[in-house]
Each structure stands twice: as structure tokens, then as C-alpha cells.
């Protein structure tokens, strides 16, 4: 049997997904037995031109991590889609926009102002911003256009499978790779994870009754070790998040932040969490309810921490 040809690429991401692909430890040897890596900017010296020269659909699978934030990301997404039989959105950025997607609360100009002017470590008195074209003695330089709105991979090209997580856990990565190696692929559009249900199903903490009088941020209180974090007033996102990661964060006393995306069938994770969270507020008095809600300083950023570009609104309206 001919070896599988696999391409890996990163667009707007932090690099964590690249490390996550390596976190399969010794199983990487098994992967190397059956697959050749034909493109991987982080690890191997291939150029974009090498990809352009490949025949269409000559790559068996592309693991694409990162959101689509600029012209280069979009170009590579389209190029790799054309060259690959299977396109896999790997990791939360490619699946739903993730942390880079939070800049959809702003626009290009506000993002540039923050990055190139306001950050304390920046000194830029001439207010120089990136330009798409720039003349130098040697000729004209071109850099990719930075977009106003971050998009997910599926909003840019046709995607076959989604691997959730920020970054995907080792077991999730291997589940996807195993399917690829064995050729036993799930139906197109599947979110590859060990669970399609909420994280709470695999969380070992004890759940009793959800009634909350006050919400806490993790630094404000030391959680009790056994009891459900949400019942203790922490904004634990497990009730609205797909399981499969093994509930690692709640077991380390940290509330789930929702990186595995929505459970099966839900199209807007933020609204789903909002609905569930608000209904457990233990009060029937509008004034007291408002007071309890005031404990949540940044609802939009909390509920859409990983999924703003994939939400119904996709971005905030910036005036």
C-alpha cells in the first residue's frame, strides 16, 4: 500500500496545535510508518511553490489549524483545499475562530491601534501601520491584506472534518489520525471527539442542585475539591461544551472555558451557555437578578471566548 500523503498548515494560530500534533508521543512513529508529510511549515522546509506544483487532490489529508485572519491564510486554505482529498479543521481556531476570533469585537483599525500604538511596549511616534504594498530600493514589497473580520476555515473553504479543542487533546488527535490511517472515516462534517454530549457527563465532580446566588471568578475563591464548579458559582462552561477531552480542567480545579465547542446540534455555543447559566440564578426578584448578573463582567467575551466568528452574529457591530 502506498503511504498516505499528509499536509499540515497553520494560519492565524498560536502554534499550540502544532505542539498538540506532536503530543501523540510514540504513536508518531506509527504515523510515520504509514504516512509521508508533504508540507509542514513549522517542521519541514517546503515552500509554498512546492504546494502549488502538486497535482490537485494529490494530498490525502490536510490538517489545517488556525483561523482565517488575512489574505495569506485565505490563499493557503484555498490552495490546500484544492490539493487535498480530505480537509480537516484541526483545533478551535480553524473550527470556530477561537482566541484570534475575539478581535471580531473590534475592526481592523481598532486592532491596529491597539497593536501598533497602544500596547505599553510599543513606541511608534510616526504611527506606522502595515501596508499591503511598500516601495524599497530593490523594488516593491507586498504583504498580505489584514482582514476586518476573522473567519473560520469552514466559512472559507469546504471542510470535511472538525477536530475540536484549544488545543485538541492527545486522545482526540489520535482518534482523528486513527480514522485516517484505517480508512474508516466517519460521515462528512463529523466533529471528531470521543463524545457528542456535554462535558458534565465525563466530569467526576458531584452534582446536586444548580442554584447560584453569586458568581465567582477563579481568583476570588478556592473551589471545594469534589463539588460541581458551576454549583459553587464558577462560570464552568461544561454544561454547554462538547466532551471528549476527559474533563481535565475541572479536575485541576479550573472551570471549563468551552474550547471543545458546542454539543452536537447546537449552532451558537454562547447563546446556549447564556440560556443555561441564567436559568440557574437563584432569585425571582429583578433587582437581585441584576445584582447577580453584575458579577459577570464580560458576558460576551466569556460566552464566545472560542466561538465568536462561528456564532450567529459572527462579529460585533463596531460604530
Amino acid at each position: 500500500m502506498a503511504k498516505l500523503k499528509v499536509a499540515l498548515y497553520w494560519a492565524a494560530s498560536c502554534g499550540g496545535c502544532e505542539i498538540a500534533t506532536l503530543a501523540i508521543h510514540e504513536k508518531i512513529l506509527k504515523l510515520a510508518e504509514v504516512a509521508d508529510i508533504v508540507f509542514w511549515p513549522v517542521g519541514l522546509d517546503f515552500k509554498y511553490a512546492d504546494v502549488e506544483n502538486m497535482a490537485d487532490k494529490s494530498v490525502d489529508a490536510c490538517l489545517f489549524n488556525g483561523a482565517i485572519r488575512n489574505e495569506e491564510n485565505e490563499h493557503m486554505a484555498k490552495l490546500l483545499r484544492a490539493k487535498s482529498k480530505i480537509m480537516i479543521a484541526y483545533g478551535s481556531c480553524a473550527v470556530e475562530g477561537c482566541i484570534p476570533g475575539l478581535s471580531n469585537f473590534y475592526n481592523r483599525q481598532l486592532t491596529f491601534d491597539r497593536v501598533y500604538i497602544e500596547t505599553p511596549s510599543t513606541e511608534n511616534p510616526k504611527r506606522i501601520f502595515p501596508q499591503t504594498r511598500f516601495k524599497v530600493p530593490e523594488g516593491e514589497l507586498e504583504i498580505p491584506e489584514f482582514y476586518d473580520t476573522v473567519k473560520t476555515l469552514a466559512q472559507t473553504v469546504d471542510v470535511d472534518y472538525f477536530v475540536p479543542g484549544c488545543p485538541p487533546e492527545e486522545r482526540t488527535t489520535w482518534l482523528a489520525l486513527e480514522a485516517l490511517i484505517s480508512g474508516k472515516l466517519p460521515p462528512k462534517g463529523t466533529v471528531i471527539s470521543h463524545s457528542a454530549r456535554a462535558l458534565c457527563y465525563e466530569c467526576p465532580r458531584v452534582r446536586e442542585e444548580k442554584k447560584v446566588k453569586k458568581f465567582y471568578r477563579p481568583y476570588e475563591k478556592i473551589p471545594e475539591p469534589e463539588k460541581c464548579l458551576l454549583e459553587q458559582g464558577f462560570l464552568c462552561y461544561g454544561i454547554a461544551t462538547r466532551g471528549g477531552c476527559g474533563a481535565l480542567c475541572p479536575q485541576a480545579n479550573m472551570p471549563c472555558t468551552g474550547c471543545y465547542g458546542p454539543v452536537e446540534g447546537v449552532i451558537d455555543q454562547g447563546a446556549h451557555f447564556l440560556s443555561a447559566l441564567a436559568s440557574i440564578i437563584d432569585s425571582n426578584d429583578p433587582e437581585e437578578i441584576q445584582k447577580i448578573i453584575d458579577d459577570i463582567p464580560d458576558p460576551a467575551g466569556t460566552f464566545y471566548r472560542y466561538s465568536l466568528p462561528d456564532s450567529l452574529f459572527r462579529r460585533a457591530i463596531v460604530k
Partner: protein
Amino acid sequence: MDNFEPRIVAFCCNWCSYAGADLAGTSRMQYAPNIRVIRVMCSGRVNPLFVLKALSIGADGVLVLGCHPGDCHYIEGNYKTMRRIPLLKKMLKQLGIEEERVRLEWVSASEGARFAEVTNDFTQTIRKLGPISWNHSKENAKEAKHG
């Protein structure tokens, strides 16, 4: 802008507010024709997602109407709504949507006049606000990704 007619979606609970709307109609009360009523079994059925969806596909404002507190046919459905809408409004503000575009009111089956009043008043509020300026972000038809 001058002849802007607001498009308003009103989610009415089956047991109180929808009956209230009915009463307004059978009593021949005049009220703003801008609302499109959607009957739900309980205001507690109104997932915040419904409100976001309505706004993202063209509604300028959303009314959620339920039974008065204590009167819920399902005992506590409207209390859940009472908790969800303020949090939803706080979130909408961060997303650049004026919080006045979403309003929760209690209308009983006998309050046809109140239904008309709430509808008229809300239509006026939205008329003043104008349409939502989606500008560059207008690509809101969500692709069916998760089935």
C-alpha cells in the same frame, strides 16, 4: 430612513400574552402593524438563540411577552426568562446592539389594551433607533455546519 418601518418579532406565550394579543384583536383595538407574532408554549421556551437569530436575519427589535410573575402555566418558566433577558441584553450591548432592541414584558390574557400599548410603545422605540447597522458584518446566514 424617513420611511423606515421597523420589523419586530414578538414571542408570545400561549397561555397569557398570545391570548392577550387575541383579545386586542377581537376587541378591535388598533396597534402598530409592525409586529410578527410567534406563539411559543412559554416565554421560558424563548432560547436567547431565537432572539439572536431574529436580529441577525432582519428583525430590528424583539419583544418577549410572558405571563406575569407567579402566573406561569408551568409554574416557573417565566422566572427563567426574567433571568435570561437581562443577561442577554448585557451581552448584546457588548456586541454593539442597543439593549432597547430587546424588551421583556408581562401581558396577561385579560390585558388586550396592555398588549396594544406595549406593541405601540416598542414600535416607537425601535423607530427612533432605526435599523441595525450591520454594515460589513452582513453575512449572517449561518451555514449548516453541525447539521
